[in-house]
Structures are given as structure tokens and as C-alpha cells.
């Protein structure tokens, strides 16, 4: 929360530019649902926002256990929101274990809302508390509200004919009601949402609405008693348009489907379940009526093979996985390099190596994407920076793959895949078509014919009379497309594959400075989800009068054509990465000013202050 006490609003509410709220409880507590509702309500109040679910790898851990705590964090406010926030201003903990595990994150002085009704001996013990933390020094640094939410929820729904179990399940909405009061959000939309969701079981809607209102009323009594007046958050002017909330998994899925529509080709999406990439398959499986074919393959290799087979037969082939799965696909990706077939491979990166921390985020598969194949097998590599950016990146990746007949890797990560934020729904009519035709000309045809400018191989699709041909992973003759063991030809074909990357580089959108000016003392250069915290850190440093710029890369291999030129204008470059310095290695292949890495491999995103501190050090070095 920056600028506390910015202004005192009309009521006694304090104004805060941004607020971070964290909900925590059991997997069955509906944490994600109320988090989502607070997000929507905030968007409707004119806030920008970002959200992130933080869940354990256990599918259903025992209730009340510390290792089974689910959390959902939300950052909203009256300026562009680029991170999910560092230290929550408010923690809603539905049981002792949720308090125990999440309290250390909370800002000192922050607000704690707990359900005293859940603080039973048994639950305290499960959480590892010797005695109730409400009765000792544990919470002295915070503003604590500890109503008996369970009891109050039961009371609020007493008039509705619900079982005790169903009544108690409305507790999350009671808590949400209290949070709505705290930040002055309207209840109307959530009530509508509940009525629509429980259209077949209206009693459940009534119960949840009653609990929501009761929680809100509880807040009003606090206000009336003069203990506290809650907060207001200013709104921000967003570009006009239709908005919705999206996760990165949704935008990847829709981006691939949109690319298929722009290219007028059937999307064949083949993949194998792996955390945190799987939701892309779920989202695409719901689009059958759009002609999307999804295929849950027997393994990662089969998924890649099927995407390649589909591409060979004329479809838009795509697959998604995470690091360990991508490792299995690499042999086949090299076949797509050799046979020059267009496929998009999405890697939702997670903390590695091996199983690593499968639900935690990292950006450590850049080497794998760029260098991880056998042979000289260069392919373009792109990275998305946010859930919203995934849509554009998926189309961009598809456009490159289809235009140049090459596999493309698109990197996202567990954070981007699961985080959500408001997204201006794009207008499909405004997006340029992907104009790639099947080859049909039989005259002079051979399978390795290529466009002399783009170097793209022709796309002769089985089923086309007169173009019967054989291709494969064996080196092919440049002139005839027949298999060739000729040394000179292999040199030539290798050169062509590498030159294709140069051609692609020349046609990529030039790199621009995201924040600040060319020639700044220090440029912070980022890729992937490090965008958010770096952008905020640079904004803050600029506000303090420092000569700092932020440059964000979408194209990691090849780099944008002007990247070297742009980099050369800065005195020093700082590269924060959630790995041990992989982008730096790539950048050092181009001569550029001194580059310093800032590395973080904890499974958690960068904190803004960590980047600010590193920028300060770089600024010192300039002097």
C-alpha cells in the first residue's frame, strides 16, 4: 500500500491508492470463489487488479492442516496494477492453520479477520498452536477482528430452510460481506451472481446472500461503534471497451483458437496432463463447436507427435506442457525443425529441475527452449508477460510458426497461468489474418521448395493430387527434397535453417522502451512474468527522480532486430530473472553494456523492493 493516509474521504473512510487482500482456508472453503467476487466487484468500482491463487500440491489435504491451506491473493487499486502485491493489507483466515501459515506475509499493522468459531482445541493443535494466538502476543502488531463467523453465519441464515452443513458453507460469503464493507464495495453484483449460479437451488442463493449481507452489516456496526471506518480506493480511467477477468491458461487457449480462426485452419491441440499447464487443455476441450480438436495423448511424446502429424496433414498443430514434459518432446520438435512443419509448443514453466516445486513458479526453461535440442535445431522462442499478454503471444507464436513453417516455443509460467486480471476483450475483426496457403502447384514441385524471401518451405498437404512426396528426419536435398547424405548439402540445409531465424528476426516488431527513455543510466531488462514487479519498481524509482528505464522482451530467440542497438544506449543493464541468469547468457552473445543479473529461485515472484534495491546498486555503479 503506497501513500497511506493519502486523503480523508467524505465519510471517515481513509483513502488508499491500492489494497492487497489475502484469503486463506481449506480447499473446500470456497476461497477462490470469494476472491473472484472481490475481484469482479473491484473491477466494477473502476479499479485495475491482479489476482493469484496459491494452492498446495496435495489435492485434498486433511482439513485444518497447515500443508492443506489454500490462499487467494488480490491486489486492486486506482493505478495500473502490475503485481499481485507484496504484503497483504488484510488477511482473512478461515481457520487457525490458515492464520498460522499466512500471518508472516501480512504487513505490520495490517488487518486480520479470523473466525473465532473455528479456533477449537483440535484445530489449534492441527495448526501447531500451543494456545490460541488471539490470547497471546502473536497478533499484537495487527488490527484483529475475530467474530464467531460460524455462529453468525448460522444465525444469518436461520430463517432459510437449509441443512446445518449447507448453512455453514455460506461462511465464506459472510467473510466476503465484511471485506466488502471494509473496502466499500457494492453487494449488488455478487447477489446477482449468486442468484444466477444457484438458479436451480435458490435456497442456497438465499443463504449465501443472507450471509453476505450479515457480514456487511457486521462491518457497519464496527463503523457505528467508531472503532474503524474502513477504506476507499480511488478508481482509475481504463481504456473504454468490454472487459472480463481472465487467467493466463484461458488466454493461451483462446489465443490458439483465435489463431486457428485467423489462419482458417483447424486447431489440433494435443497434450498430456501436467501441472501447471493442464488447464489449457481443459479450456480448449470446451471449444469443440468451434471445430477445435483436442487430443489427450498417452504421453508427452505422443502429444508432440500428434501435433506434428496434424501439421503435416494441414492443420494448425499445437501442444502445451511444462519443463519435464518439454524435455520429452524435444526429439520430436527437432523432427519438426528438419521437416519444416509449423507447431506451437507452449511451456508453462514451473520450478525445476525434475518434479521440483510443480505448483510454484520459475523461469528456468529458457536454456531448454533455446538450446535444448540435439543437432543444430534453432527455433523461435517467445515469452508472455502476463495473463492478458498470453492471448497476443499465442497469436504471435502461431503467426511465426505458420508463416515460416517452423516450430515455435511460447514460454509462460505457473504464475501467469493461474493469475488473473481484467482484460479488454479483443475485437477479432481488428486482428490481421494469418494468410498461409496449402501448396497446390504441381509444376516443378518438390517437398523442400521454399519461398526465397521468408525461406518458408511449401506446405503440400496429403490429399492433394500430384504432390505425393516423402519427407522425414533424414537430411533432404535442397534441390529435390529427396534424402541426401551429401556433405555440402547438409551444410547448406543447416545454413538455411539458421538463416530462417535471421529472416524472422528482421521482421519482428522492434523493441521499445516500456518505461523511461533510451540512454537512461540503468535499464531493467526483463522477460516473462518478471515484467510486473520490474515495471512497478522502475515506476517507483523514476518517481524518485532516478534515470531508470524498463525494457521488456517478448522475443527471446531471435531477439528483436534493434535490440542490440537499443541496449547499447544504456550505461548499465540489470536483468532480474527467476533463474540463475539464463537471459544474461543469451544477451552476452551480443556485445552490450555491462549486464548484472538479479537472480531469485524461491518459487515466488520478485518483490518490488528487491528489484529497487538492485537498481540502486546499479545506479551507484554508474557514478
Amino acid at each position, binding site marked *: 500500500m503506497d501513500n497511506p493516509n493519502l486523503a480523508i474521504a467524505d465519510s471517515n473512510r481513509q483513502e488508499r491508492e491500492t489494497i492487497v487482500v489475502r484469503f486463506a482456508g481449506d480447499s473446500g472453503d470456497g476461497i477462490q470463489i470469494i476472491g473472484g467476487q472481490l475481484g469482479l466487484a473491484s473491477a466494477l468500482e473502476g479499479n485495475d487488479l491482479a489476482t493469484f491463487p496459491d494452492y498446495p500440491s496435495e489435492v485434498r489435504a486433511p482439513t485444518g492442516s497447515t500443508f492443506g491451506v489454500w490462499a487467494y491473493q488480490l491486489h486492486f487499486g486506482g493505478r495500473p496494477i502490475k503485481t499481485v502485491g507484496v504484503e497483504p493489507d488484510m488477511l482473512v483466515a478461515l481457520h487457525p492453520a490458515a492464520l498460522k501459515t499466512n500471518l508472516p506475509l501480512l504487513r505490520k499493522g495490517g488487518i486480520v479477520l479470523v473466525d473465532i468459531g473455528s479456533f477449537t482445541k483440535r484445530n489449534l493443535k492441527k495448526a501447531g498452536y500451543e494456545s490460541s494466538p488471539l490470547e497471546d502476543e502473536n497478533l499484537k502488531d495487527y488490527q484483529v477482528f475475530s467474530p464467531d463467523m460460524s455462529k453468525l453465519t448460522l444465525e444469518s441464515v436461520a430463517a432459510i430452510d437449509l441443512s446445518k452443513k449447507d448453512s455453514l458453507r455460506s461462511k465464506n460469503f459472510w467473510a466476503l460481506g465484511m471485506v466488502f464493507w471494509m473496502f466499500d464495495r457494492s453487494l449488488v453484483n455478487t447477489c446477482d451472481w449468486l442468484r444466477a449460479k444457484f438458479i436451480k437451488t435458490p435456497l442456497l442463493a438465499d443463504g449465501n446472500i443472507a450471509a453476505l449481507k450479515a457480514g456487511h452489516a457486521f462491518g457497519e456496526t464496527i463503523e457505528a461503534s467508531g472503532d474503524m471506518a474502513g477504506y476507499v480506493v480511488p478508481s482509475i480511467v481504463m481504456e473504454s471497451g468490454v472487459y472480463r477477468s481472465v487467467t493466463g491458461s484461458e488466454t493461451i487457449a483462446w489465443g490458439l483458437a483465435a489463431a486457428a480462426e485467423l489462419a482458417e485452419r483447424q486447431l489440433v491441440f494435443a497434450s498430456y496432463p501436467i501441472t501447471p499447464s493442464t488447464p489449457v487443455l481443459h479450456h480448449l476441450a470446451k471449444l469443440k*463447436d468451434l471445430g477445435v480438436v483436442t487430443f489427450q495423448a498417452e504421453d508427452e511424446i505422443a502429444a508432440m507427435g500428434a501435433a506434428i502429424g496434424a501439421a503435416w496433414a494441414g492443420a494448425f498443430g499445437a501442444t502445451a506442457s511444462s519443463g519435464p514434459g518439454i524435455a520429452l518432446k524435444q526429439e520430436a520438435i527437432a523432427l519438426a525443425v528438419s521437416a519444416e512443419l509449423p507447431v506451437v509448443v507452449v511451456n508453462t514453466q514451473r520450478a525445476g529441475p525434475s518434479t521440483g516445486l510443480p505448483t510454484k513458479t520459475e523461469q528456468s526453461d529458457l536454456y531448454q527452449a533455446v538450446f535444448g535440442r540435439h543437432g543444430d535445431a534453432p527455433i523461435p522462442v517467445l515469452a508472455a508477460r502476463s495473463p492478458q499478454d498470453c492471448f497476443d503471444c499465442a497469436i504471435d507464436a502461431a503467426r511465426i510458426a505458420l508463416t515460416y513453417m517452423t516450430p515455435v516455443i511460447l514460454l509462460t509460467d505457473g504464475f501467469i497461468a493461474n493469475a488473473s486480471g481484467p482484460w479488454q476483450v479483443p475485437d477479432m475483426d481488428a486482428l490481421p489474418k494469418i494468410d498461409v496457403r496449402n501448396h497446390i502447384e504441381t509444376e516443378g514441385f518438390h517437398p523442400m521448395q521454399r519461398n526465397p524471401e521468408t525461406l518458408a518451405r511449401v506446405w503440400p498437404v496429403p490429399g492433394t493430387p500430384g504432390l505425393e512426396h516423402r519427407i522425414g528426419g533424414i537430411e533432404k536435398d535442397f534441390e529435390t527434397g529427396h534424402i541426401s547424405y551429401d556433405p555440402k548439402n547438409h551444410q547448406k540445409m543447416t545454413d538455411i535453417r539458421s538463416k530462417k531465424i535471421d529472416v524472422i528476426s528482421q521482421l519482428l516488431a522492434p523493441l521499445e522502451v516500456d518505461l523511461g527513455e533510451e540512454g537512461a543510466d540503468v535499464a531493467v531488462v526483463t522477460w516473462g512474468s518478471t515484467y510486473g514487479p520490474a515495471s512497478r519498481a522502475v515506476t517507483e524509482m523514476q518517481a524518485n527522480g532516478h534515470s531508470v528505464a524498463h525494457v521488456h522482451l517478448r522475443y527471446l530467440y531471435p531477439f528483436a532486430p534493434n535490440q542490440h542497438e537499443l541496449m547499447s544506449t544504456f550505461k548499465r543493464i540489470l536483468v532480474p530473472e527467476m533463474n540463475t541468469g539464463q537471459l544474461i547468457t543469451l544477451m552476452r552473445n551480443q556485445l552490450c553494456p555491462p549486464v548484472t543479473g538479479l537472480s531469485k529461485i524461491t518459487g515466488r515472484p520478485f518483490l518490488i523492493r528487491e528489484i529497487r534495491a538492485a537498481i540502486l546498486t546499479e545506479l551507484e555503479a554508474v557514478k
Partner: protein
Amino acid sequence: MKSNVDNAKPTVADFTSDQEVRWCPGCGDYSILKAVRKTMAEAGVLRENTVVISGIGCAARFPYYVDCYGFHTIHGRAPTIATGALLANPDLDVWIATGDGDALSIGGNHMMHILRRNVNCNIVLFNNAIYGLTKGQYSPTSRQNTISPSSPVGSLDSPLNATHLALGSGARFVARAVDNQQVQLASILKAAHEHKGASFVEVFQNCHVFNDHVFADFTARDKVADNQIQIENGEKLLYGSEKEKGLRLDPDTLELVACAAGEGVLRHNSTSRTLAMTLADMDAGRPVATGVLYNNPAPVYQNAVHEQIAMAKRRRKTRTIQDVMNEGYTWKV
């Protein structure tokens, strides 16, 4: 395949590419190539709809020699590429040429799954019980104690029964053939091609360079009659030079046992998986069964996939990706 029939009947020459065949002279692969081309020509298929996909190994060179669409892919993965191609275009007439190492070792998983899904294609397994291309190591179908460069004192692994694997994976068409029994081979390939769904044909193929005569005990001219039983659906299970021997079911062991032709010989029923399993089980002491062991069609995977899509389209006629993105909760700024 109906959509793939040419009116002016093509000839074997139409399916012969301009590439010089590079198998060792005398290799059993030649006769399989001949039989496949013949099957294509006789079925009158369109070259442009016909596809041969292979992995790696001697057998995997097959696509280069057939004048249609061909994809020589990577070791063991031909079923995956074929599945993808058929998802994109369900009407392609796909053949997979594979060897015992390719199909049963490195690609064993994919073989299992293409069979259980019942993807419409013809899988021809060139089983020579040896790795040819890498110069003679024992393979997953090599008999125990095979002497090879990687097993100088004999291999220890017990061999995989390819036909059992196919039946166990849920294949709906399973047959066995022998490379030099051209007439039977061609008729089996014809039946495999006519069968809608994954057709699995194991061909005992002689690699005379690295594993000569490995199947001679039931394929040699003087051994065929007594050590091989060529089965036909609906016909009695008879063998011997005068068809004087037969097989009957022992009710105690549920095994097929040899008997004289008159003694309650069983008739082959190619829709019985149990019988097919038992027939595929026979080795020493009983004749090796060749022919169509199992033929019991079921719905075709790629058709079902596209049927689901067609159904979804009928239900929601006009939805576009724009509509999808506009669905759910949106707000205007």
C-alpha cells in the same frame, strides 16, 4: 476406404516410387513391399489419399518406396504422427510400417494406445526378432539365448508376443503372416485394409543378414505343413500335408490340443478374442497360427472425434471465438 477409390484402376507400378530400394538383397522386406503395393492397387485407392508413416529401422524405409504421401519420422513414434494426421484429416488411408524394436520396444506405449483407441489405419509389423539397422542386437521379440553383439553369451529377456500385446491392448483386427507366403500375405493385407479401425498385422520377416532362419521351424518349405496352421474364419482348424491333423479344445485346461482331423476339431471364429489369444499362444509342439486371428470391428476413433465436433456444432451453430470471449461475466468501461 470408400472415399479413396479411383475409378480407373491403378496398377502396382502406380504405387512404385522412383527411389531405389535399399534393403539388403534377399531381405524379407521386399515381399512385404510387393504385397502392400498390390493391396493398394487392387483396392483401387487414390495415391493422394494414401499415406505411409514409419519410425526408424530397416522397415521404416518403406515410405520412400511407395509412390504416395510418406513420412519417415522418429524411432517408435509413427503411431503418434499417424494419429495426429488422422485427427486433422480422418479420411486419409494410413499405413504404418514398423519393426519389432520400433513398435514394441521404444514405441511400445504408442502401439498400445493407437490400438486401444482404434484409430483407423493399417499397422504392418515387420518382425524379424533382431535390430537390423544397428547391426544385429537382440530385440524384444528375440528368443531367449539369442547370441548377438549385445548378448555374446545369449540374451536373457523372454520375448514379447506381439500378437498377444495387440489383443491385450484391445486391437479389433489382429493377423499374422509370413513374408514369403505371398498369397496369404496379400489376402491378409486386403482384409486389414478393408477393416475399419486399427488393423494389426504381424509379419514374420526373415533378416538373413543378422537372424537368418529364425522362423524357419514353421516357415521353411518342409516345415510349413506340420508346424504352421493357416486359419480362415469359419473353417476347421486343420493342418498337416493332408489336413489330417486338427486342433480341439481341451475342456480341462482350456488349451488347444492337437488331434486327428475327425476328433471334434474346432472351427475358427475370428470374432472370439479368447480363441485368438489361445491361437497366438501356440509354439513348440503345436503349430504356429497364421491368418486373421481376430476381426471384430468397433467404432473408429477419428470418426468419433469428428462426430463429437459435428454434434457440438449442431448444438451451437454460430458460436465463434469472439462469442466465447464475450461469454460469462463482462463489463463495459
